[in-house]
């Protein structure tokens, strides 16, 4: 096993613009491995855009221009000629609203394994079970694995999406406000899961609730209108903010 470098993701002067409207400006950040990094900031400041640029998901949209370096595991993944699906496989995405695939619960988790041919048919069921257990969904769905995934509750769907992402064995889990569409109980479940997962994965969490960031984050990045104003270990940033905007954000004057 190769030793994971201290910084899993690093960006150098990353710029992103949609339709000639610059959303991210000169982003230079470091995301430490096997920790939970929270990206916080007022809404509309480019948090989601930054998150989706990590696994090159922005490219499927119209009229996007991305420049700069994006270094994952010591390799610049913005270099042309790389196989983008393989990069994405390494980074699971949990979106704001859960989007299970239009298939059964079982097939949802098995999908990633099937397309990558990672597992033989026999091992497939075991792998699916393991992923579902990891997110605590197994006992809830083991009797109806072949029901449509759309029949699950939203909270269950979100955990299914997590299980689906874990099945392909990513290194990084990107979460885009994963609890904002959920009821409080389900949100707490997902939050606990993320805390558990950071032992084995690098977790990047976009959140607009400050309290959530304070509860779970090890490392914090503060985005303000497309710029990174602060980054550092969570306790440092929260107890000792340097910029005026961060102070205002912490005191709840801007949200």
């Amino acid at each position, binding site marked *: 096993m190769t030793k994971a470098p201290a910084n899993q993701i690093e960006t150098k002067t990353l710029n992103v613009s949609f339709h000639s409207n610059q959303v991210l400006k000169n982003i230079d950040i470091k995301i430490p491995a096997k920790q939970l990094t929270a990206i916080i900031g007022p809404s509309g400041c480019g948090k989601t855009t930054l998150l*989706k640029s990590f*696994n090159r*998901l922005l490219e*499927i*949209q*119209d009229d996007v221009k991305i420049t700069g370096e994006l270094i994952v595991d010591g390799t610049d993944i913005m270099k042309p000629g790389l196989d983008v*699906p*393989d990069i*994405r*496989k*390494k*980074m*699971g*995405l949990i*979106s704001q*609203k859960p*989007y*299970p*695939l*239009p*298939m*059964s619960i079982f097939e949802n988790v098995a*999908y*990633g394994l099937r*397309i*990558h041919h990672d597992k033989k048919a026999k091992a497939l069921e075991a792998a699916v079970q393991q992923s579902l257990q990891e997110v605590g969904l197994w006992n809830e769905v083991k009797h109806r694995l072949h029901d*449509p*995934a*759309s029949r699950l509750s939203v909270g269950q769907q979100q955990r299914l*999406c997590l299980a*689906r*992402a874990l099945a*392909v064995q990513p290194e990084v889990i*990107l979460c885009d406000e994963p609890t904002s569409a959920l009821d409080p109980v389900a949100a707490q479940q997902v939050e606990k899961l993320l805390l558990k997962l950071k032992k084995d994965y690098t977790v990047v969490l976009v959140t607009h609730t400050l309290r959530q960031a304070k509860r779970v984050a090890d490392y914090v990045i503060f985005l303000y209108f497309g710029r990174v104003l602060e980054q550092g270990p969570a306790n440092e940033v929260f107890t000792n903010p340097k910029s005026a905007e961060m102070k205002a954000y912490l005191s709840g004057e801007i949200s």
Partner: protein
Amino acid sequence: MIASVLIVIGSLFFIVLVVVLNGASSLSLEIFTQTSEGGFYLGKGGGFLNAIVGSLLLAFPATGIAFLVGIVIALYLQRDFLHPGIAQFIRLCLDILWGIPSIVYGVFCLTIMIAIGMGGGSVFFGIVALTLLEIPIITRSIDESIKMVPLGLKESAYSLGSTKYETSIKVVRKQAMPGIIAGILLGFGRGIGDAASILLTVGDSNYFPTSLFDQTAALPTMILNLASMPDHIVQRKAYAVAFVLLIIVLLISIITRYLTKKSSKYIIK
């Protein structure tokens, strides 16, 4: 307002009623079991089994080919593959093709048939004409339902490491399934009922076609032929054929409802 509702409902009901009443009364078993040889057009016995078979032989292959072509184009029109501007241009072309009167497709095929010296009409060119007619219909209907696939779903598929091709074939296709089914059946309905394109391309026959290059009868052209006969009793037989067409259209609608409901089980909203 009420008056206009009455006019619309009245006239449409009237048409259905005329066909159903007259058609049902001239239906008989022999109509479904015999071909039109031996004077069906002259007021003697016989049936239109050959037209039913002919119509199915035309519409099924045409719908099949048009579906294969249509779904491929519709998937390719996604922004994942094609610049949205170009896709818009192709949509415009398809809309124009959809709007072209079907007789133009008939003339197009007839031109080719004359050019290569096969002017008599055949099953093959009937299928070609119907395929051309159905491609824009099926493509645009599938395209509309693919447009509805949420971006988040595609992002999910991509972030699991799917290639563009896998995302389209395995995820987008499943999500768009109800629209795809509706599109296929819409195309089939148009194909089996269209007379103008077939009129110029398949000729006529009292027998079952035995090869691709035989002439054949079909339901819509048979209505035309029967209706143009001077004898009133023969003319009324056209109602029976029209009744069968009406039943087919109704069946298609019922099947569409059933299948779209069934296939939307897995759809993510």
